[in-house]
Protein backbone atom coordinates (compact mmCIF):
# COMPACT_ATOMS: atom_id res chain seq x y z
CA UNK A 1 0.00 0.00 0.00
CA UNK A 2 1.09 3.54 -0.80
CA UNK A 3 2.66 5.40 2.08
CA UNK A 4 0.43 8.48 1.72
CA UNK A 5 -2.80 6.45 1.65
CA UNK A 6 -1.72 4.67 4.79
CA UNK A 7 -0.91 7.98 6.48
CA UNK A 8 -4.32 9.28 5.48
CA UNK A 9 -6.14 6.28 6.95
CA UNK A 10 -4.15 6.39 10.18
CA UNK A 11 -4.80 10.12 10.43
CA UNK A 12 -8.53 9.53 9.94
CA UNK A 13 -8.46 6.81 12.59
CA UNK A 14 -6.71 9.02 15.15
CA UNK A 15 -9.06 11.93 14.41
CA UNK A 16 -12.06 9.59 14.84
CA UNK A 17 -10.71 8.37 18.18
CA UNK A 18 -10.09 11.89 19.47
CA UNK A 19 -13.54 13.03 18.28
CA UNK A 20 -15.05 10.01 20.06
CA UNK A 21 -13.30 10.98 23.29
CA UNK A 22 -14.56 14.55 22.90
CA UNK A 23 -18.13 13.36 22.31
CA UNK A 24 -17.83 11.17 25.39
CA UNK A 25 -16.68 14.03 27.59
CA UNK A 26 -18.93 16.77 26.20
CA UNK A 27 -22.12 15.04 25.04
CA UNK A 28 -22.23 11.92 27.25
CA UNK A 29 -20.45 13.31 30.29
CA UNK A 30 -21.08 16.55 32.11
CA UNK A 31 -17.75 18.26 31.59
CA UNK A 32 -19.40 21.43 30.29
CA UNK A 33 -22.17 21.65 32.88
CA UNK A 34 -20.17 22.19 35.98
CA UNK A 35 -16.70 23.62 36.18
CA UNK A 36 -15.25 23.16 39.65
CA UNK A 37 -12.29 25.49 39.07
CA UNK A 38 -14.35 28.55 40.05
CA UNK A 39 -16.00 27.44 43.22
CA UNK A 40 -16.33 28.11 46.91
CA UNK A 41 -16.92 25.64 49.71
CA UNK A 42 -19.69 25.87 52.26
CA UNK A 43 -20.94 23.34 54.77
CA UNK A 44 -24.03 22.57 56.75
CA UNK A 45 -24.99 20.36 59.69
CA UNK A 46 -27.88 17.99 59.09
CA UNK A 47 -29.61 15.94 61.74
CA UNK A 48 -30.18 13.10 59.27
CA UNK A 49 -28.91 12.92 55.72
CA UNK A 50 -30.95 9.88 54.69
CA UNK A 51 -29.43 8.46 51.51
CA UNK A 52 -27.43 11.51 50.47
CA UNK A 53 -24.15 10.60 48.81
CA UNK A 54 -20.94 12.35 47.88
CA UNK A 55 -21.27 13.91 44.38
CA UNK A 56 -24.99 14.47 44.83
CA UNK A 57 -26.12 17.73 43.20
CA UNK A 58 -26.92 20.90 45.11
CA UNK A 59 -29.89 22.56 43.46
CA UNK A 60 -31.68 25.82 43.81
CA UNK A 61 -34.99 26.22 42.01
CA UNK A 62 -34.15 22.93 40.29
CA UNK A 63 -30.92 24.24 38.76
CA UNK A 64 -27.64 22.54 39.69
CA UNK A 65 -25.51 25.13 41.49
CA UNK A 66 -22.98 22.86 43.15
CA UNK A 67 -22.05 19.40 44.33
CA UNK A 68 -21.64 17.59 47.63
CA UNK A 69 -17.93 16.92 48.09
CA UNK A 70 -17.73 15.42 51.56
CA UNK A 71 -19.95 13.95 54.25
CA UNK A 72 -18.54 13.55 57.76
CA UNK A 73 -19.99 12.62 61.13
CA UNK A 74 -19.31 15.14 63.86
CA UNK A 75 -18.72 13.76 67.35
CA UNK A 76 -19.21 17.20 68.91
CA UNK A 77 -22.75 17.77 67.75
CA UNK A 78 -23.61 14.17 66.79
CA UNK A 79 -24.92 15.09 63.38
CA UNK A 80 -23.69 14.97 59.79
CA UNK A 81 -21.48 17.71 58.36
CA UNK A 82 -22.05 18.01 54.62
CA UNK A 83 -19.48 19.97 52.62
CA UNK A 84 -20.61 21.44 49.31
CA UNK A 85 -18.65 22.86 46.40
CA UNK A 86 -20.63 25.76 44.96
CA UNK A 87 -20.25 27.36 41.55
CA UNK A 88 -18.96 30.87 42.22
CA UNK A 89 -21.37 32.35 39.67
CA UNK A 90 -24.14 31.67 42.17
CA UNK A 91 -24.01 33.60 45.45
CA UNK A 92 -26.50 32.90 48.23
CA UNK A 93 -27.55 35.01 51.23
CA UNK A 94 -26.31 34.02 54.65
CA UNK A 95 -29.71 32.87 55.90
CA UNK A 96 -30.25 30.43 53.00
CA UNK A 97 -32.30 27.39 53.92
CA UNK A 98 -30.82 23.98 52.95
CA UNK A 99 -32.95 20.85 52.91
CA UNK A 100 -32.36 17.31 51.69
CA UNK A 101 -34.91 16.42 49.04
CA UNK A 102 -35.60 13.46 46.78
CA UNK A 103 -36.06 13.78 43.04
CA UNK A 104 -39.05 11.68 42.06
CA UNK A 105 -40.40 8.76 44.02
CA UNK A 106 -37.35 6.52 43.81
CA UNK A 107 -34.86 9.08 42.60
CA UNK A 108 -31.57 10.21 44.07
CA UNK A 109 -31.37 12.61 46.98
CA UNK A 110 -30.03 16.13 46.58
CA UNK A 111 -29.68 19.29 48.60
CA UNK A 112 -32.18 22.00 47.79
CA UNK A 113 -31.28 25.60 48.63
CA UNK A 114 -33.95 28.22 49.23
CA UNK A 115 -32.48 31.70 49.29
CA UNK A 116 -33.17 33.91 52.30
CA UNK A 117 -33.29 37.69 52.53
CA UNK A 118 -29.99 38.54 54.20
CA UNK A 119 -27.77 41.21 52.66
CA UNK A 120 -24.58 39.33 53.52
CA UNK A 121 -23.62 36.52 51.14
CA UNK A 122 -22.18 33.11 52.01
CA UNK A 123 -18.41 33.05 51.61
CA UNK A 124 -15.76 30.33 51.32
CA UNK A 125 -15.83 28.14 54.45
CA UNK A 126 -19.14 29.50 55.78
CA UNK A 127 -21.73 27.35 57.46
CA UNK A 128 -25.41 27.19 56.56
CA UNK A 129 -27.34 27.61 59.81
CA UNK A 130 -30.85 26.65 58.72
CA UNK A 131 -31.04 23.04 57.62
CA UNK A 132 -33.80 20.53 57.19
CA UNK A 133 -33.12 16.79 57.42
CA UNK A 134 -34.03 14.14 54.94
CA UNK A 135 -37.41 12.46 55.21
CA UNK A 136 -36.97 8.98 56.61
CA UNK A 137 -39.89 6.76 55.74
CA UNK A 138 -39.97 4.93 59.09
CA UNK A 139 -40.08 8.19 61.06
CA UNK A 140 -42.80 9.48 58.79
CA UNK A 141 -44.93 6.37 59.31
CA UNK A 142 -44.15 6.42 63.04
CA UNK A 143 -45.32 10.02 63.34
CA UNK A 144 -48.44 9.25 61.35
CA UNK A 145 -49.31 6.28 63.57
CA UNK A 146 -48.61 8.33 66.68
CA UNK A 147 -50.90 11.13 65.50
CA UNK A 148 -53.56 8.60 64.57
CA UNK A 149 -53.44 7.07 68.05
CA UNK A 150 -53.63 10.53 69.63
CA UNK A 151 -56.66 11.35 67.48
CA UNK A 152 -58.40 8.10 68.47
CA UNK A 153 -57.95 8.89 72.15
CA UNK A 154 -59.86 12.15 71.85
CA UNK A 155 -63.03 10.36 70.89
Amino acid sequence: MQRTTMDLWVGLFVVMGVVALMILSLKVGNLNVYNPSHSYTISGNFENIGGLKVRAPVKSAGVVVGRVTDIQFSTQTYDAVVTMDMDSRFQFPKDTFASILTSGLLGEQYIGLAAGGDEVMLKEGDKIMKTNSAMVLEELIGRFLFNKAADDDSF
Partner: protein
Amino acid sequence: MPKRIVSNIRNIGHRTIESVWRLGIASRFFLLVLLKSGTSFRRFNLVIRELYFTGVLSLIIIVVSGLFVGMVLGLQGYETLQKYGSESAVGTLVALSLVRELGPVVAALLFASRAGSAITAEIGLMKATEQLAAMGMMAVDPVARVVAPRFWAGVISMPLLAAIFSVMGVYGGYLVTVVFIGVDEGSYWSQMQSAVDFRIDILNGFIKSCFFGVAVTAIAVFEGYDAPPTAEGVSGATTRTVVTSSLVILGLDFILTAFMFRGVS
Protein backbone atom coordinates in the same frame (compact mmCIF):
# COMPACT_ATOMS: atom_id res chain seq x y z
CA MET B 1 0.04 -46.13 44.59
CA PRO B 2 2.27 -43.74 46.58
CA LYS B 3 4.53 -43.62 43.56
CA ARG B 4 1.71 -42.26 41.43
CA ILE B 5 0.84 -39.64 44.04
CA VAL B 6 4.46 -38.55 44.22
CA SER B 7 4.71 -38.30 40.45
CA ASN B 8 1.49 -36.27 40.32
CA ILE B 9 2.80 -33.84 42.91
CA ARG B 10 6.07 -33.64 41.00
CA ASN B 11 4.06 -32.82 37.91
CA ILE B 12 2.31 -29.95 39.67
CA GLY B 13 5.63 -28.60 40.90
CA HIS B 14 7.14 -28.83 37.44
CA ARG B 15 4.24 -26.91 35.91
CA THR B 16 4.40 -24.22 38.60
CA ILE B 17 8.12 -23.70 38.07
CA GLU B 18 7.58 -23.68 34.31
CA SER B 19 4.88 -21.01 34.47
CA VAL B 20 6.80 -18.79 36.90
CA TRP B 21 9.85 -19.12 34.67
CA ARG B 22 7.79 -18.16 31.63
CA LEU B 23 6.32 -15.17 33.47
CA GLY B 24 9.84 -14.04 34.30
CA ILE B 25 10.91 -14.33 30.67
CA ALA B 26 7.82 -12.41 29.59
CA SER B 27 8.53 -9.61 32.08
CA ARG B 28 12.13 -9.36 30.95
CA PHE B 29 11.02 -9.28 27.34
CA PHE B 30 8.53 -6.52 28.19
CA LEU B 31 11.31 -4.46 29.80
CA LEU B 32 13.51 -5.09 26.77
CA VAL B 33 10.78 -3.81 24.45
CA LEU B 34 10.38 -0.68 26.59
CA LEU B 35 14.14 -0.08 26.63
CA LYS B 36 14.46 -0.47 22.88
CA SER B 37 11.41 1.55 21.90
CA GLY B 38 13.44 4.71 21.30
CA THR B 39 13.79 3.73 17.63
CA SER B 40 10.03 3.59 17.11
CA PHE B 41 9.68 7.21 18.21
CA ARG B 42 12.64 8.43 16.18
CA ARG B 43 11.28 6.65 13.11
CA PHE B 44 7.60 7.17 13.76
CA ASN B 45 6.53 6.02 10.30
CA LEU B 46 7.22 2.45 11.48
CA VAL B 47 4.56 2.92 14.16
CA ILE B 48 2.19 4.55 11.65
CA ARG B 49 2.44 1.48 9.41
CA GLU B 50 1.51 -0.75 12.33
CA LEU B 51 -1.25 1.65 13.42
CA TYR B 52 -2.81 1.03 10.04
CA PHE B 53 -2.82 -2.73 10.55
CA THR B 54 -3.85 -2.82 14.22
CA GLY B 55 -6.03 0.28 14.45
CA VAL B 56 -7.59 1.11 11.10
CA LEU B 57 -8.32 -2.47 10.11
CA SER B 58 -9.96 -3.12 13.50
CA LEU B 59 -12.31 -0.17 13.00
CA ILE B 60 -15.04 -2.08 11.14
CA ILE B 61 -15.51 -4.76 13.77
CA ILE B 62 -15.32 -2.20 16.61
CA VAL B 63 -17.86 0.15 15.01
CA VAL B 64 -20.32 -2.61 14.09
CA SER B 65 -20.15 -4.44 17.41
CA GLY B 66 -20.29 -1.18 19.38
CA LEU B 67 -23.44 -0.21 17.51
CA PHE B 68 -25.08 -3.56 18.14
CA VAL B 69 -24.06 -3.79 21.80
CA GLY B 70 -25.58 -0.33 22.33
CA MET B 71 -28.75 -1.31 20.49
CA VAL B 72 -29.18 -4.47 22.55
CA LEU B 73 -28.46 -2.60 25.79
CA GLY B 74 -31.06 0.00 24.86
CA LEU B 75 -33.66 -2.62 23.99
CA GLN B 76 -33.12 -4.78 27.08
CA GLY B 77 -32.77 -1.79 29.38
CA TYR B 78 -36.00 -0.32 28.05
CA GLU B 79 -37.88 -3.59 28.55
CA THR B 80 -36.82 -3.75 32.20
CA LEU B 81 -37.03 -0.06 33.05
CA GLN B 82 -40.50 0.46 31.61
CA LYS B 83 -41.83 -1.96 34.25
CA TYR B 84 -40.94 0.68 36.82
CA GLY B 85 -42.08 3.57 34.67
CA SER B 86 -38.57 5.00 34.44
CA GLU B 87 -37.77 4.31 30.79
CA SER B 88 -36.25 7.77 30.52
CA ALA B 89 -33.29 6.46 32.55
CA VAL B 90 -32.34 4.16 29.67
CA GLY B 91 -29.77 6.69 28.47
CA THR B 92 -28.03 6.55 31.83
CA LEU B 93 -28.02 2.76 31.77
CA VAL B 94 -26.58 2.54 28.26
CA ALA B 95 -23.94 5.22 28.79
CA LEU B 96 -22.74 4.10 32.21
CA SER B 97 -22.46 0.43 31.30
CA LEU B 98 -20.64 1.28 28.08
CA VAL B 99 -18.26 3.91 29.42
CA ARG B 100 -17.38 2.09 32.63
CA GLU B 101 -17.27 -1.55 31.56
CA LEU B 102 -18.41 -2.74 28.16
CA GLY B 103 -16.55 -0.16 26.09
CA PRO B 104 -13.06 -0.91 27.39
CA VAL B 105 -13.61 -4.65 27.99
CA VAL B 106 -15.44 -5.71 24.83
CA ALA B 107 -13.26 -3.48 22.66
CA ALA B 108 -10.18 -5.06 24.28
CA LEU B 109 -11.52 -8.60 23.74
CA LEU B 110 -12.23 -7.81 20.09
CA PHE B 111 -8.85 -6.13 19.76
CA ALA B 112 -7.13 -9.20 21.23
CA SER B 113 -8.77 -11.53 18.74
CA ARG B 114 -8.53 -9.18 15.76
CA ALA B 115 -5.15 -7.46 16.15
CA GLY B 116 -3.39 -9.42 18.91
CA SER B 117 -3.63 -12.72 17.04
CA ALA B 118 -2.41 -11.04 13.85
CA ILE B 119 0.63 -9.58 15.64
CA THR B 120 1.52 -12.98 17.13
CA ALA B 121 1.11 -14.79 13.84
CA GLU B 122 3.19 -12.20 11.97
CA ILE B 123 6.08 -12.14 14.43
CA GLY B 124 5.94 -15.93 14.90
CA LEU B 125 6.09 -16.54 11.17
CA MET B 126 8.92 -14.01 10.80
CA LYS B 127 10.78 -16.03 13.40
CA ALA B 128 9.91 -19.38 11.77
CA THR B 129 11.17 -18.20 8.37
CA GLU B 130 14.31 -16.83 10.06
CA GLN B 131 13.63 -13.24 9.03
CA LEU B 132 14.35 -12.10 12.59
CA ALA B 133 17.65 -13.97 12.60
CA ALA B 134 18.52 -12.41 9.23
CA MET B 135 17.85 -8.95 10.66
CA GLY B 136 20.16 -9.76 13.52
CA MET B 137 22.83 -10.76 11.00
CA MET B 138 22.50 -7.34 9.35
CA ALA B 139 23.00 -5.66 12.75
CA VAL B 140 19.34 -4.57 12.80
CA ASP B 141 17.85 -5.23 16.20
CA PRO B 142 14.61 -7.20 15.58
CA VAL B 143 13.15 -6.11 18.93
CA ALA B 144 13.61 -2.44 18.07
CA ARG B 145 12.67 -2.79 14.40
CA VAL B 146 9.80 -5.31 14.50
CA VAL B 147 8.48 -5.73 18.05
CA ALA B 148 8.52 -2.22 19.55
CA PRO B 149 6.56 -0.46 16.75
CA ARG B 150 3.84 -3.11 16.96
CA PHE B 151 3.71 -2.76 20.72
CA TRP B 152 3.35 1.03 20.63
CA ALA B 153 0.82 0.94 17.80
CA GLY B 154 -1.35 -1.36 19.91
CA VAL B 155 -0.95 0.81 23.01
CA ILE B 156 -1.96 3.92 21.04
CA SER B 157 -4.89 2.42 19.17
CA MET B 158 -6.57 0.56 22.06
CA PRO B 159 -7.93 3.63 23.97
CA LEU B 160 -9.06 5.22 20.70
CA LEU B 161 -10.90 2.05 19.68
CA ALA B 162 -12.53 1.79 23.11
CA ALA B 163 -13.73 5.40 22.87
CA ILE B 164 -15.13 4.79 19.38
CA PHE B 165 -16.84 1.64 20.67
CA SER B 166 -18.51 3.55 23.53
CA VAL B 167 -19.68 6.38 21.29
CA MET B 168 -21.10 3.95 18.73
CA GLY B 169 -22.88 2.12 21.56
CA VAL B 170 -24.41 5.32 22.93
CA TYR B 171 -25.69 6.20 19.44
CA GLY B 172 -26.91 2.61 18.94
CA GLY B 173 -28.93 2.89 22.14
CA TYR B 174 -30.20 6.27 20.93
CA LEU B 175 -31.25 4.72 17.62
CA VAL B 176 -33.28 1.93 19.22
CA THR B 177 -34.82 3.72 22.20
CA VAL B 178 -35.38 7.23 20.86
CA VAL B 179 -35.87 6.70 17.14
CA PHE B 180 -37.60 3.29 17.10
CA ILE B 181 -39.36 3.02 20.47
CA GLY B 182 -39.96 6.71 21.11
CA VAL B 183 -38.34 7.53 24.44
CA ASP B 184 -38.07 11.30 24.84
CA GLU B 185 -34.87 12.54 23.23
CA GLY B 186 -34.26 15.29 25.79
CA SER B 187 -34.48 12.98 28.76
CA TYR B 188 -32.24 10.39 27.05
CA TRP B 189 -29.39 12.89 26.80
CA SER B 190 -30.02 14.96 29.92
CA GLN B 191 -30.35 12.02 32.31
CA MET B 192 -27.20 10.57 30.77
CA GLN B 193 -25.30 13.83 31.22
CA SER B 194 -26.36 14.27 34.81
CA ALA B 195 -25.29 10.72 35.71
CA VAL B 196 -22.01 10.34 33.79
CA ASP B 197 -19.13 12.13 35.45
CA PHE B 198 -16.10 13.10 33.42
CA ARG B 199 -13.42 12.15 35.93
CA ILE B 200 -15.01 9.14 37.59
CA ASP B 201 -16.59 7.46 34.58
CA ILE B 202 -14.98 8.64 31.36
CA LEU B 203 -11.42 9.16 32.57
CA ASN B 204 -11.41 5.88 34.48
CA GLY B 205 -12.76 4.05 31.44
CA PHE B 206 -10.00 5.62 29.36
CA ILE B 207 -7.35 4.55 31.90
CA LYS B 208 -8.79 1.04 31.86
CA SER B 209 -8.48 0.81 28.08
CA CYS B 210 -4.85 2.03 28.28
CA PHE B 211 -4.07 -0.81 30.70
CA PHE B 212 -5.78 -3.31 28.41
CA GLY B 213 -3.87 -2.00 25.42
CA VAL B 214 -0.53 -2.52 27.16
CA ALA B 215 -1.54 -5.98 28.40
CA VAL B 216 -2.91 -7.30 25.10
CA THR B 217 -0.07 -6.10 22.90
CA ALA B 218 2.60 -7.13 25.42
CA ILE B 219 1.17 -10.66 25.47
CA ALA B 220 0.80 -10.71 21.68
CA VAL B 221 4.37 -9.66 20.90
CA PHE B 222 5.80 -11.95 23.58
CA GLU B 223 3.88 -15.00 22.33
CA GLY B 224 4.94 -14.22 18.78
CA TYR B 225 8.60 -13.75 19.68
CA ASP B 226 8.56 -16.83 21.90
CA ALA B 227 6.71 -19.12 19.43
CA PRO B 228 8.43 -22.37 18.41
CA PRO B 229 9.58 -21.86 14.81
CA THR B 230 7.19 -24.38 13.29
CA ALA B 231 3.73 -24.14 11.73
CA GLU B 232 2.30 -25.89 14.77
CA GLY B 233 4.18 -23.61 17.14
CA VAL B 234 2.88 -20.45 15.46
CA SER B 235 -0.71 -21.69 15.53
CA GLY B 236 -0.37 -22.64 19.22
CA ALA B 237 1.11 -19.23 20.02
CA THR B 238 -1.77 -17.46 18.25
CA THR B 239 -4.31 -19.44 20.25
CA ARG B 240 -2.44 -18.75 23.48
CA THR B 241 -2.42 -15.02 22.72
CA VAL B 242 -6.19 -14.87 22.40
CA VAL B 243 -6.88 -17.08 25.43
CA THR B 244 -4.30 -15.48 27.75
CA SER B 245 -5.12 -11.92 26.82
CA SER B 246 -8.86 -12.50 27.22
CA LEU B 247 -8.32 -13.93 30.70
CA VAL B 248 -5.89 -11.15 31.61
CA ILE B 249 -8.38 -8.50 30.39
CA LEU B 250 -11.18 -9.92 32.52
CA GLY B 251 -8.98 -10.32 35.61
CA LEU B 252 -7.41 -6.89 35.21
CA ASP B 253 -10.85 -5.38 34.70
CA PHE B 254 -12.03 -6.75 38.02
CA ILE B 255 -8.98 -5.40 39.85
CA LEU B 256 -9.17 -1.97 38.18
CA THR B 257 -12.91 -1.71 38.81
CA ALA B 258 -12.39 -2.57 42.47
CA PHE B 259 -9.85 0.25 42.75
CA MET B 260 -11.67 2.85 40.65
CA PHE B 261 -15.34 2.50 41.47
CA ARG B 262 -15.29 1.41 45.11
CA GLY B 263 -17.53 3.64 47.15
CA VAL B 264 -18.82 5.51 44.10
CA SER B 265 -22.60 5.60 43.96
